[in-house]
Structure formats: structure tokens, C-alpha cells
């Protein structure tokens, strides 16, 4: 099993190289002379030349890529707009994004799985219809609109929670108050799709023969659901959470913009609107890295949950 985990860990390296190559490739799509596009039409000849030299923009492509990666990893890649190292800005913003993402993930798991199980056990009840209707609605609502609705309800009408900004570290009351709305709106997509899938997966498992056997043996219904069915139903659900993480990290960009949350997502949007290529490269690479790593963690969790997987 450890061999499998190590293999999966090593798999990150080619994926990240692939991602950075793709981002590099996209940067090559800049029409015309990149240096003058990056610096704007009013840039002096001198500035264009310095930039060309710094990024090796006149070198062949593979050397350009090598220089970009080397500068990024050693922390010497500088943002054009902020004039600071990209790694430094990103590391300042990393904590806020990770806090937001993890809280949203926890909220989603804690809410969605019980809702799905309850809907499956009480199939065709009012609760089932109501929760599944909400779930269908939930996958169609854009995250930013959920955010705006939450702000409208809780900040404008009831005025109980702050509408935007970062309140401070998680252990303070202020920090929590600021985190609740963004985390909820970010988790909404994940809640919707996970509860739908939990329900259908539970329903499928509850029809299996071994459940009938357990019931026939006289096992209590609560034990049948919580022990026998739950573990088997969770396998596709966990796969789905892994797939939906992309939505979570993409959604982070929107949520951070709606709530003025000082994270990497908002930084990425700023970078794109200033066309600050080094910063775009850095932020998107780091966000993709986070996505790949969380996906990996879920893959490894999978090993513990699904006894049938082969580790070779």
C-alpha cells in the first residue's frame, strides 16, 4: 500500500510539469510582441529591451521555459504590476484561500452526506423531494449569485453578518463571522452535487443482496444503513468529490471576488485584468497545484475506504 501511495505522490511531478507547459504554451498565444503587450503601448524601447533580457524572450522556446521555471522556483520571477517577487505575493495570500477552501469542503461534506442518506432512506418523502429540488437548483446557480443572495439576505436585510473582507485568523470571532458567508456560498455547488450522488448511490446499495441478507438476519435498520450500506455507498461519492474539487478551486476565484476575500483567486483575476503574465502564471500554477494535491489526498483516502482497489 505504501508503494501505491508513493507512486501516487511521484505522479504529481509529471502532472505539474504538464500544467506548467500548458500555461507556458498559452502564454505563447499572446498576439504580436509579448514585451510591448505586457508593458503597454507607451513603454519605452529601453524597458522593452530590459524585459526581453530578463525573461529571455528572444531566446528559443525551451530556454524561455527553462528560465521561467527556474526563476519561479527560486523565487526570482517578478510581477510586472506589483514589482515584487511572485512567490512572495502568493505566499501572503495563500492562507486565506486555503482557509476558505477547506472550510467550504468541510461544510459540504458535513451537510451533504447526511442529507443524501436521509433522502435515500426516506425515499419519496417530503424531505426527499424538497432536498433534491434544492439540489437541482443548487447545481444551476452560479457561485457568485449564491454569494450575492447570501449577502443580500444576511448583510442587507438582517444585517447579522459582514458582507465582505477578511476578519482575521480563524480562532477569533471576527474571523469566523467573515468566513461563514463565503464558505457557504463556495460549498453550495459541492453540497448540491454530493447530496444528489449520495442519495442515488445509497438507493442503489440498499437494493443489493447483502443488505437484504443483513435485514433478514435481524440486524437493526440503523446498523444496516450506517454500517453496511454507508461504507459501500461512499465510494462513488468520494470519487465525485474529487472531481468536483475543480469546481471548488474555480469557484474560489468567484467567491473571493464577490466577498473581497484577499486570496489567490482574487489575485489571479487582478493579474489577468492587468495582463501581468508572470503573476498569472504563478497564481494559476499554484491554484492548479492545490487542486492536484487535494485530489491526490482524496485518492489516497480512497485506499482506506475501498478495500477492493488494487495497489499495483
Amino acid at each position, binding site marked *: 500500500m505504501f508503494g501505491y501511495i508513493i507512486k501516487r505522490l511521484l505522479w504529481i511531478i509529471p502532472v505539474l510539469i504538464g500544467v506548467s507547459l500548458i500555461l507556458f504554451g498559452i502564454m505563447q498565444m499572446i498576439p504580436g510582441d509579448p514585451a510591448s503587450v505586457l508593458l503597454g503601448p507607451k513603454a519605452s524601447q529601453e524597458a522593452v529591451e530590459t524585459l526581453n533580457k530578463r525573461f529571455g524572450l528572444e531566446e528559443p522556446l525551451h530556454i524561455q521555459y527553462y528560465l521561467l521555471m527556474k526563476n519561479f522556483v527560486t523565487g526570482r520571477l517578478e510581477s510586472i504590476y506589483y514589482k515584487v517577487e511572485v512567490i512572495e505575493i502568493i505566499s501572503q495570500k495563500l492562507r486565506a484561500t486555503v482557509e476558505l477552501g477547506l472550510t467550504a469542503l468541510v461544510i459540504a461534506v458535513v451537510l451533504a452526506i447526511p442529507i443524501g442518506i436521509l433522502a435515500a432512506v426516506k425515499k419519496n418523502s417530503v424531505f426527499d423531494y424538497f432536498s433534491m429540488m434544492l439540489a437541482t437548483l443548487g447545481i444551476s446557480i452560479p457561485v457568485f449569485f449564491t454569494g*450575492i443572495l447570501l449577502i443580500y439576505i444576511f448583510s442587507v436585510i438582517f444585517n447579522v453578518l459582514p458582507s465582505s473582507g477578511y476578519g482575521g485568523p480563524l480562532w477569533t470571532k471576527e474571523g469566523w463571522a467573515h468566513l461563514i458567508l463565503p464558505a457557504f456560498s463556495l460549498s453550495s455547488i459541492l453540497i448540491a452535487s454530493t447530496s444528489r450522488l449520495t442519495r442515488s448511490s445509497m438507493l442503489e446499495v440498499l437494493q443489493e443482496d447483502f443488505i437484504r441478507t443483513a435485514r433478514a438476519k435481524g440486524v437493526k435498520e440503523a446498523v444496516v444503513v450506517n454500517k453496511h450500506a454507508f461504507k459501500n455507498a461512499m465510494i462513488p461519492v468520494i470519487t465525485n468529490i474529487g472531481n468536483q474539487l475543480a469546481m471548488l478551486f474555480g469557484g474560489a476565484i468567484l467567491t473571493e471576488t464577490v466577498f473581497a476575500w484577499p486570496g489567490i483567486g482574487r489575485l489571479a483575476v487582478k493579474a489577468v485584468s492587468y495582463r501581468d503574465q508572470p503573476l498569472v502564471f504563478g497564481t494559476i500554477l499554484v491554484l492548479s497545484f492545490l487542486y492536484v494535491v487535494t485530489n491526490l489526498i482524496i485518492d489516497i483516502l480512497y485506499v482506506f475506504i475501498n478495500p477492493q482497489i488494487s495497489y499495483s
Partner: protein
Amino acid sequence: MKKRFIPLILLIVELYVLFQNWIVKGLFWGSLEIKLATSFSIIVLTFLLILVFKPGLFSFLKENEILYKSFKEFKKNKGGVAGTFMIFIILYLAFCAPFVAPYPPDAIDYANMSASAPTFKHLMGTDDFGRDILSRVIYGSRVALGVAFAAVFVNAFIGISLGLIAGFYGGKTDTIVMRVVETWNSIPFILLALAIIAALGKDIINVIIAVGLTGLINFARITRSAVLSIKEKEFVKAAKALGSSDYRVIRKHILPNVISPIIVIASLRVGQAILLVASLSFLGLGVQPPLSSWGTMLKRGQEYLIQAPWISLFSGFAIIITVMSFNLLGDALRDALDPKQIE
């Protein structure tokens, strides 16, 4: 008679709209916008007339057994029927926007400047420039659907081509193509779209490119697996033995067999593409201001959330209804076209 009731009402509404526009306002064949609206109206009118007076005209379609069974399966799904109905209405609004919208999208009502609340004159209120929200929401459907359909077309074209290449040639080509597609997919959609827009600049065409290049993997995977299962069948081998070219085998024998899963994926993908375009516009990186799009309206609406919540609420509802219709349609199609159930 009960069956004809809904088409009859729709027909009366359509005739009223056409009477108002063609005869009262004299908008029949002016600019390109109105030509499009008129042509689309004529199509809708013919269709409704057939439905009301000669509903048996399409009965020859029932002879195709698979199609008929899928259709019957589809009709059982209430959500799918509702979704299809909504999509028709949204399409109608998009094509016939100049006929239906009460005002032009950028007309300023000087009496109701600076965001007035919904009244009978402006059913959804006005925005901070005094522009009618209802008209802007209706015109916004054009941008949303146009960009999304174009993006999904690009998506399907590239995805299917990659899947065909991978599945048909197999071996090393297969491994390389699928690995590239998987790595491509390991960047979340929005991030990839952002990177593309950062390189190309903000422009509606670039949004189509950016959204069209994300999410190829579903199309590629489905096509590839279908090709792999069909490739070994006798009829394909026979076609090859008869000397058909690769192109002919793909076009005549393989593509027709993968069309139904592709339709399902495409309809689900349209919903996602609408969301993605709205998200990019909301971030200020998609459709740019003079054009009315739902994402940009939401962005402006958030700034005026306290004084004028209707700006963001109505444009948000428009997004939800449209996306949900496509999701419902996709789900229903998936159930209806599932070959396991047709047997």
C-alpha cells in the same frame, strides 16, 4: 382537444406579437436583427400552425422504432419536458428580442434615471443609467446562448476529433493524446479560461475560444471509448476490407454510433458554458460593458445591492433558469437515450 390547448394559446400569443410588430410598428424587414427575428417568427408560426391544425403530420417519425421509444421515454420525464419548453422560450426571446423586449437594451429613460424600482412601466426596474432591466435581460439571452453554443461547438469539434484520433489509431497516438487531454483537464476550467484570456485579451471572440478550449475531456473520452468498442465489429472490418478510406469509415460507420452520448454531453455542456461565460463576465474579463450580458449586469448589480437589488436578482434568475433548463434537458436525454433502457 386538450393536447392542442397549449399550442393554441402559444399561437394566439405569437399572432398578437407579430400583429403588434409587423403591422402596428411596421418592423418587418429592416436591419439584420429584425430580419432574423422575422425569419425565426415565420418558422415558429409554421410549426405552431402544424401543431394546432395538422398534428398528424409528424407521425412518420413514429415508424423509426428507436427514435419513438426514446421519445416516449423522454416524455415520461417531467423535468425534461419542462426544460425543453423553457429552452424554446429562451431561444424565442433570444431570436425575437427586438419584437418582445419593451425597450431597446441601451435606451435611457430620463424620467427613471439612477435605478428605479420595478413598476408597470419597467417590470423589472431600471439600472443606474435608467436602462430597462427586462429588456437587458432579454437581450442578454442572445449573448449567453450565442457564446455558449459557439463555445460548445468548438468544444465538441476538438474533443470529438481528438477522441476519434486516439481511438481509431490506438497505440502510442492514443496514449499521447489522452495524456495531453488529461493534463489539460487537470487545470480547473475557470483557471484555464483565465489564462487564455490573459494571453489573448478581453474580447467576445476570445471568450468563445477560452470556453471552447476547456472541458474537452468528456467529448474526447466518450468518443474514444465508443470508437474502441465499434472498431472491432465486423461491419467496420468489412468496410475496411472493401477498401474504404479511414475518413469514410469514421464518417459513415463510427460517427453515427457515437452521436447519442455526444448529444447528451453537449446539452449538459451548454449549461456549464453559460455558467462559465457568466462567471468570466462577472469577473470583468468576459463580455464587455456596452453589450448587455447577465454576468456583467450581476457585477454592476452587486455594487448597487443595497439601493437596487433588482438589478442583480433578475439577471441572476435568468442565469439560473437557463442553466437549469439545459441541465434538466441533458438529464432527461441521458435517461431517454440510454441504450440499456431502450432494449
